[in-house]
């Protein structure tokens, strides 16, 4: 039973980390956690050069 609980906790932690990485990557963030990536995420809407990440 203990093993099951610990396994679930581990899966939850790793799952959350993977989800966060996937969400950030879908936003177009190149470097996870980058504080400057968010502000320019909508740049594709104004179709300047197709970039959607401030780091590109």
């Amino acid at each position: 039973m203990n093993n099951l609980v610990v396994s679930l906790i581990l899966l939850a932690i790793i799952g959350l980390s993977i989800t966060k990485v996937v969400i950030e990557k879908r936003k177009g963030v190149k470097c996870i956690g980058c504080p400057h990536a968010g502000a320019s995420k909508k740049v594709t809407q104004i179709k300047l050069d197709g970039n959607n990440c401030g780091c590109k």
Partner: protein
Amino acid sequence: MKIALTGNPNSGKTTLFNAITGKIEHVGNWAGVTVDKKEGQIKSTLNRTGMEMTAIDLPGAYSMSPFTSEESITSEFIRTENPDVIINIVDATNLNRSLFFTSQLLELNIPVVVALNKSDMTQKKKTKIDIAKLSKQLGCPVVETISTKTNNNGLETLISKVAEIKDNDQVAPFVATGVKMDSKTSVEASDKKRFEFIKKIVTSVENRKVSSNKQTSQDAVDRILAHKVVGLPIFAFIMWAVFSISQTHVGPMLSDILVGWIDNLYALVEGGLGEGVSPVLSSLLLDGIIGGVGAVVGFLPLIMVLFFLLALLEDCGYMARVAVIMDRFFKRVGLSGKSIIPMVIGTGCAIPGVMATRTIKNERQRRTTAMLTPFMPCGAKLPVIALFAGVFFGDAAWVGTSMYFAGIGIIIIGALMVVRITGEKNARSFFIMELPEYRFPSIKRAVVSTASRGKAFIIKAGTIILLCNAAVQIMQTFNWQFEVVAEGAQNTSILASISSPFAILLVPLGFGAWQLAAAAITGFIAKENVVGTLAVVYSITNFIDTEELAVVSGQEDIASIMGLTSVAALSYLVFNLFTPPCFAAIGAMNSEMEDKKWLWGGIAFQFGVGYTVAFAVYQIGTLVTTGAFGTGFLPGLIVVGALLATVIILIKKGDAKAQFKATPQKA
């Protein structure tokens, strides 16, 4: 509604953008910080119109005729994207220069609002500007703003003016006619007329008490700080002081508190697991996740203190002087004077640093700078520096400082090599940078900048570093048959079998253990992983002593666990700092270089430099300290010899190419 924020470099566009949108884009008290456009919604507290307003922060430009690539982003955006309104941020302390661009914007028939920024500084200088008269002469609203202030900063008035004039036709007070854009004389004559027009306006609206020709106390400070001889030692001393405060005094004290919390969490979870839990699962949770991530997060306060101090230096205007100090060295080795900007930005993160190379017009100089910028130790490398300085050198501040100066030295030598290899004539480059005035640094801005970096560090630790540490722990626990390896037999694990072949190559550098090789490999995903992986593979729960307020607990114990001498540790540190950066930064290099040959050449060069410097540090250091060369001297010498021979051959080829170009060709 689309609002373009434009203005000269260092007029305060990004500070104003952050103030009206609530974003935290990086600002710097010097020109060239913004090299790409940024977008954000105007805050509802400023926007009372109910309309959706989007502000686009554009890189600084002096004119609509682009001279640099970031200026072309600005002029192209304004010409092709038809913003509804332009907010032209004008530096109130320098009207003469700023209004040249304003007069060009007014010709585009897009409504313009002038934000007369830095109004507080004009008041300090007792300069009076007749706002109503200026507005009348320009034919557009002019609003005084102080974007660094929280209240009474004029921003609400600015946004309401934007809403008011959005559908107006803009009348230009000066129209350049009959200019032949392909004729330099014609363009210059037109610019001259425009300057005369601006001069007339400025004379009629501005009343200066302090002449710009007078020598001020700021000039006196500059004569010392930016001096061609003493400027560099002063910079070295300042960097030493920054490292000393962040890594020896204040940083460890704060880290101690954080590590105490991590230790408590570890003990709580360990106690909570109780008996009967599989050792594989408990070690994955305790050593892999809490221990590995905790080891990296433990260094967070040190890094935040360091970034806080660097933010203060940047905000007070000192970093712009560093650019001037370094300019003459860089120009002599064939780099652009502008190369210093990416390198200073690269001390925070190599990715925006590499990205900032796009301000360099010359292709060879741009690519060379993109290749060399990652040699400046970035924020992700700081935990590695702090760890090794703490374990092997008693928190000595000279370790961090010398790594920065070693990075600068490598950049200079590397640039010289690239010039010779490419066989291109050293292009004369001019670096004209407006030096911002010294000002008392804003604690608020430094705190905001540090907090955003701290948040980024925690997110990275909770995602990439956590996943890597978990993977390392799993690969260390199992062998290829997916059986749990016996205690003390980790040499048979998946991780050991993958990293051992690399470890052999590293023997001449003084660190042939597979654990150290594994940490160096995971460092290419994110450099902080070096610390996390070392914590996992050596089962060290934290590197910071909670009792003695030192960076590392049981320094001698950790040094002996790693099996490294001080010289080998320095070699390992140098190897991790000066081999290629993380994959994300390599991706940025790829984007900016736009050439696979340059990219792969750059990566090979970075590997070659890291290997050679680490080899030299270990072998020479061992010779000096013990009187004999270290392990693997001969094989290492062969590898380094082969690398140097390759460089010499490439230089010879480059010289031949240069000679061929210089020889007049017969028709």
